[in-house]
């Protein structure tokens, strides 16, 4: 008798445990796995947030390196404001009050990401918000 024949002679009837199947299914379906929201790696939001943060860091470093000179800061801020404002994907959204201060809002749209930037009357960036579609 070959090994194959021996395997064929062994009983291959399938066993059934319907009670166990039903119970196990019920327990699994109430597992906390189904209650936790799936976390997505949103590369668009992450990328735009990171690039915007980098921009802010460069801006802050240039202010510090200017020695805190107010005129220099305003000048640097104006440069930054002008650069942003002149970008083709940036549009003015008018004035809005932020933290009790009147601000000028610029909106930058890049792919599916929208960034709103709030500048005070000296064109210093005081707040920003990033939205993802």
């Amino acid at each position, binding site marked *: 008798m070959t090994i194959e024949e021996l395997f064929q002679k062994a*009983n291959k009837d*399938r066993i059934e*445990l319907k*009670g*166990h*199947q039903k*119970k196990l299914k019920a*327990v699994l379906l109430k597992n906390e*796995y*189904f209650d936790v929201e799936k976390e997505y790696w949103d590369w668009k939001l992450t990328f735009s947030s990171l690039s915007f943060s980098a921009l802010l860091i460069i801006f802050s470093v240039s202010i510090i390196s200017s020695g805190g000179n107010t005129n220099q800061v305003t000048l640097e801020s104006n440069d930054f404001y002008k650069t942003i404002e002149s970008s083709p994907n940036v549009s003015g959204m008018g004035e809005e009050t932020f933290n009790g201060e009147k601000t000028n809002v610029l909106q930058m749209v890049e792919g599916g990401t929208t960034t709103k930037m709030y500048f005070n009357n000296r064109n210093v960036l005081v707040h920003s918000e990033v939205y993802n579609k």
Partner: protein
Amino acid sequence: MYYNRCMDTDVKELVERAQNKDRDAFGSLFDLYYDKVLNYVFRRVLNTEYAKDITSNAFLKALKNLDQFEWRNGPFSFSGWIFKIATNEVNQYFRKQNRYKLTIDDPDFKELGDNNKVVEEIEKKIDNDKHLLILNKAIKQLKPIYQDILHLKYFEEMSYEEISQVLNKNESTIRVYSKRAKEELRIILEKDASEFLVNI
């Protein structure tokens, strides 16, 4: 072939939905694979209670790791993955033996079950199946990987391609191992069960 290829798309869709926390989709996957996994595990351990515990732990592990599953090995991706988990659990059972524990900690789950009559009938059938008992005893003397291959090939009737996915080895290695496993099994059977084999 272990299951019909026309089911591939359905299974893939069910897996994706289950990964998005769809209970019904996971329920359907469970119903699709429960019998296959239970019977595979049962033939490995030949004990109804441990087969239930191992199957339960395997499905719980599959659920907890479902987010990590990626469909990248063609049509047998999911069945290969679920059998891989079941095989790991079986091997853990062999290492731990009576220290193997059910990991589902739910009082409702422990209280109810299939009535004793069902379990008794299954075990009586096994006790009368001399071929299965002899094979099982002989297979247990082989290396774990050879045991996995023989069970998957001859009881679960999987192709070498499917087995290679379950055991994470390339197909040619599985073919070589399968041949060696059969040779070693033959030697064990000739030594331990020659009397029985002559009389059948």
